[in-house]
């Protein structure tokens, strides 16, 4: 996992969000425009230039009490403003494993 502090030269090729894992349970979270964390990608702050991405990432890195290892992740913004993960890894982080999980009642 790349810490935003390691991502010194931030070059972004499109819209991005800041994502991390929640301290309590490790759940995937996104930085929201009001400086909190949300599990909804649609509620995340989307940056479209390197400076705003860096500002978001730096603020996120300060919040070590709530989120672990924030980094910049690509997204795509569909017409109508719907935000989608920008790659497979981020898709799986958002949606969970692509396989069916065993259910507790399984025998």
């Amino acid at each position, binding site marked *: 996992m790349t810490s935003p502090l390691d991502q010194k030269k931030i070059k972004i090729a499109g819209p991005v969000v800041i994502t991390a894992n929640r301290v309590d*349970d490790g*759940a*995937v979270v996104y930085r929201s425009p009001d400086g909190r964390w949300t599990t909804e990608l649609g509620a995340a702050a989307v940056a479209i230039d390197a400076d705003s991405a860096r500002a978001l990432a730096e603020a996120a890195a300060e919040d070590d009490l709530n989120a672990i*290892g924030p980094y910049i992740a690509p997204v795509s913004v569909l017409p109508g403003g719907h935000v989608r993960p920008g790659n497979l890894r981020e898709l*799986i982080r958002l949606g969970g494993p692509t396989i069916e999980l065993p259910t*507790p009642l*399984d025998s």
Partner: protein
Amino acid sequence: MYVYDAFDRRLLAERVAEFRDQVARRLSGELTEEEFKPLRLMNGVYLQLHAYMLRIAIPYGTLSTLQLRKLAEIARKYDRGYGHFTTRQNIQFHWIKLAELPDAMAELASVGMHGMQTSGNNVRNITTDQWAGVAPDEIEDPRIWAELIRQHVTLHPEFSFMPRKFKIALGASSRDRAALRIHDMALRLHRNAAGETGFEVMVGGGLGRTPYLAQTIKPFLPKRDVLSYVEAVLRTYNQFGRRDNIWKARIKILVHDLGAEAFAKEVEAEWQGIKDGALALDPAMVAEIASRFRYPDYEKLDDSPPQLAKARRDDRGFDTWMANCVANHKVPGYAVVTLSLKPQGGTPGDCTAVQMDKLADFADRYSFGEIRVGHEQNLALPHVAQRDLPALWRELDAIGLAQTNVNLITDIISCPGLDYCSLANARSIPIAQEITQRFRDLDIQRDLGRLHINISGCINACGHHHVGHIGILGVEKNGEEFYQITLGGKADENATLGTLIGPAVPYAQVADVVEDIAAAYLELRQPPQELFIDTVKRLGVEPFRERVYAAR
């Protein structure tokens, strides 16, 4: 079974209390993640893509029913109702919450289990042949020695911050069921020409980015010297292993760079200074450890009772299961039963809480309360009376644990890959699932015979792809999942690294490629029934390469 003493229990209780305090300080903000991370890792707590993961050691793959029921309870109470058995005799829970971890650990400690040294640059869980103590070809139970070494290296300050992690495996049979040569150090019990028992010591094995097989640096080490020699190897590695580059830090690089002979000389020099000191083993102490391994009170039974032969004749399903999943036991009238955790379309190594509980019941009734965990991500009941096999089979079948695919093409070893792991490049599990669907016909599987597929989601090689008869490695190309295919690897007593057959293929083509390889084998094999691995050895990968890439 090994019985913990008061010292072991106190150590675990203290460790849980310490971790409870650390978690509280992390949650209150007193500890930063940077400060907390090494502490959680020392207790086997990782952070994966979606959640924390707790890895619990199952030393030498031996579990009691008390422990298995506890694992089921942990799965239910603190996780999502299942656990995942890994390739190193560990179990992982993939959805555990930080605040609940101390309670889960306290419960585990109550049955003598923990996650210590399942992460970090120390000596990891010491593994053995999962048939230790029951295999007919074994010269003695290697777990006694594994336990001795385990006690010595647990929380050993000198070996808690080595250049990198250190994995040890032990075996005591002519057949290697513990993948000895892919370990940092392996110890194989055998007899020398004089009939004495001692260890062959191998070092420098490991997969990952730079795969090497371990080399023998001492063909025969007397048993009394095993601790001092292990200590000398660890010290030599600690002193000379590289700490400047994580990719060159494992002992395999040191052994390769120095040469096995020069490495052995360094170890020898270190060893001479300590071999007759405090670490020389006192037979009374070894006997004391051995006495804490309790063996079942076997009945006097004959091999092959008549009702077994009849049951085999009467039911083809049972007969097939007997052929694929049941092995000989060193005690007459008993058998070792392997339980495949590789259902068609399922996740290799996953086991639900319901299955764990039922299995614990069966183990109590049919296997003297003992279960084994193997590096192939399967389980075993190690002491089943042969007369009970038909009844056990029916009960296992009812909970989906009488899969007959042990050692066949669908008995796939697979790491969690990109569905769980934060280091992954590509998914492993869906690839395994698709292959099990393609080869779901058991007659086809049996016709293909023994064939091991190993899948890793990245070059770290947790799925041991380099030693799969067919190895599949996930790589990423321009944001897409691709897979490199190797052939001819094996992890047995004739361990070999596989050979890459050509350019990586995309996700959607992997199962097709495996079908092509299987079809080529059926055409190329020599009658009667030359094994896949032998055909690859005889012909090399070229005919397979041609077949796979001709159509692509």
